[in-house]
């Protein structure tokens, strides 16, 4: 009896796809309504992000960037879901979700400062509705329910979207976040980027559930599993999720994808836990290759366009690094000043002490 229920539930979670690995449309009815310019813009963002990822990795190796979690392989998942959002929507990212917040309006040089561990990286510009990338796995998920309820109470036509990984879906906070959003009929979208590993731990070891998407069932919210290497599918499910969210129906989106690089640049060695065969298998599903093929067939993309984006990305990154370099170094007194609106007595004393030290 119980087994039967699980099988019935699991049979509902087949992976949604629009573009297959060869860039062919396999689900015509589901094609999102995007103009040629929009399709080109999406490709632009994926290429740009891939170049930025490569540069970030080499800058980190040169010691010119700090903490960095590579994103190659996850561009469709990140950019497709983000492209379905409106400017006023809120994003609660995890540490890897820097592309989404930059495309939402965080200046690139501030993303670099965040990576270097400079407080200005967290000083989000007015009108950019994001929180800084979350380090504590799961914390952002419960908070997303709160932001969503806030938006609802303020009668905004906006949603809160939050991102975590396959490992993150094991945290208690993950269940609490979905459950709260469902209970309050709050406009929330929960994206789990299932890139197959939580550092070294394969997704199969995280749970007995066959999909992460099915975890939505117990919370009473929508759940869908998507090919996370297919940007049209990612866009389409997020667009639907957004509409549902505004009707008080949250969605859990499981995006099935892969990270090509190491977990972060801090000494992770993927050869300890994955095989080259697996890497190769996933690289065949690459989101850029298949979307490029799709656009080329429509005469919407060519080498010249690609090179333009590459050059622009490189120039922007150079400029952003320069701007990050030019930002004044942070002092202990800066950190003291940002602790409270009004400094309490202990910090007032310490502020004076550190200012004096710093003036020497």
């Amino acid at each position, binding site marked *: 009896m119980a087994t039967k229920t699980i099988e019935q539930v699991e049979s509902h979670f087949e992976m949604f796809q629009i573009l297959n690995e060869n860039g062919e449309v396999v689900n015509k009815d589901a094609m999102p309504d995007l103009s040629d310019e929009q399709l080109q813009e999406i490709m632009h963002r994926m290429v740009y992000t891939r170049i930025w990822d490569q540069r970030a990795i080499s800058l980190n190796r040169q010691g010119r960037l700090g903490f960095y979690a590579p994103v190659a392989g996850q561009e469709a998942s990140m950019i497709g879901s983000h492209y379905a959002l409106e400017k006023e929507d809120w994003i609660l990212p995890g540490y890897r979700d820097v592309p989404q917040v930059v495309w939402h309006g965080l200046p690139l040089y501030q993303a670099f400062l965040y990576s270097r561990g400079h407080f200005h990286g967290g000083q989000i510009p007015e009108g950019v509705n994001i929180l800084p990338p979350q380090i504590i796995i799961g914390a952002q998920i419960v908070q997303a329910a709160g932001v969503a309820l806030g938006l609802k109470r303020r009668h905004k036509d906006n949603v809160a979207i939050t991102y975590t990984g396959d490992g993150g879906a*094991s945290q208690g906070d993950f269940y609490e976040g979905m459950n709260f959003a469902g209970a309050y009929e709050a406009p929330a979208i929960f994206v789990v980027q299932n890139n197959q590993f939580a550092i070294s731990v394969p997704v199969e070891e995280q749970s007995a559930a066959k999909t992460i998407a099915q975890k939505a069932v117990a919370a009473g919210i929508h759940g869908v599993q998507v090919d996370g290497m297919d940007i049209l599918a990612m866009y389409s499910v997020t667009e639907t999720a957004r509409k549902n969210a505004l009707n008080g129906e949250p969605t859990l989106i499981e995006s099935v994808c892969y990270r090509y690089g190491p977990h972060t640049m801090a000494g992770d060695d993927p050869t300890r*836990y994955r095989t080259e065969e697996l890497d190769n298998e996933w690289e065949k599903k690459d989101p850029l290759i298949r979307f490029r093929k799709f656009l080329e067939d429509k005469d919407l993309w060519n080498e010249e366009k690609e090179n333009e984006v590459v050059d622009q990305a490189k120039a922007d990154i150079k400029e952003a690094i320069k701007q990050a370099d030019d930002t004044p170094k942070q002092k202990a007194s800066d950190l003291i000043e940002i602790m409270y609106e009004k400094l309490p007595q202990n910090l007032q004393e310490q502020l004076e002490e550190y200012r004096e030290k710093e003036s020497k």
Partner: protein
Amino acid sequence: MAQMTMIQAITDAMRTELKNDENVLVYGEDVGQNGGVFRATEGLQDEFGEERVFDTPLAESGIGGLTLGLAVTGFRPVMEIQFFGFVFETMDEVVGQIARLRYRTGGKYGAPVTIRTPYGGGVKTPELHADSLEGIIAQSPGISVVIPSTPYDAKGLLISAIRSNDPVFYLEHMKLYRSFREEVPEEEYTVEIGKADVKREGKDVTLIAYGAMVHTCLKAADQLAEEGYEAEVIDLRTVSPIDMDTIVESVKKTNRAVMVQEAQRQAGVGSNVMADLNERAILHLEAPVLRVAAPDTVFPFAAAEDVWLPNENDVIEKAKAVLNF
């Protein structure tokens, strides 16, 4: 004897106890095949099998609950929290449940649990990885808090922790993992929990520290010696309970003391030591006990660590202030 880094000594202690007692289990996030993100459990799964050394799902509260459950079914769990800052996710299991288990069951069930976790500044980690949160655990009755500063102590203390029938929180300073090697016996030995160690003898001033600050104090003591002052350096090794006997004995000799901690002034365990010194040794003191600590902010963003963490100069300055009081 072998030359070992602190992390090798830690691995060696776990291997020793996995061999000695089949009830010992070692687990946490990435602890199995990957050998832990710092390689503290390197090779242990291959040697002892997946039933005894294993990965858990990514959920610290789950790991804590699992630990209590395994403890009451007769196991001797050694759980890892990948970084100390994630202790908040499992604070209820550690402080609200495991530390109280013996009390709640009127002495029926102890919790022979070891909780290992890396912490400590100077390695430029992201937020909530490096914070010195030991004061929060140290304030909780029912659990000891151990912080080794040398490879030798690391092995002996970890073996004691694993053998203890009460829970021990075992903190590993990241900066010390591979910073130096020393002679560590290959055979088993223990270092008693709750006992401080005089790491350098001196007659003029007592410097009290733990974790990486022990080495900061030793460097400061070298410099003070050049100026003619003999500093005694005490390594607490266990920050709850605190070995006041060793501290008071030293202060009776030096009559002067400085408390040094990496934690913020309002955090850590320094204020406890100072309050106790006031109660037990005020008549032996010729100057107020001063302290070196970090400012009362959140642990700094990586790029500001160097200006935020206490250093030798801070220790020397405070030592001279009590010496010249």
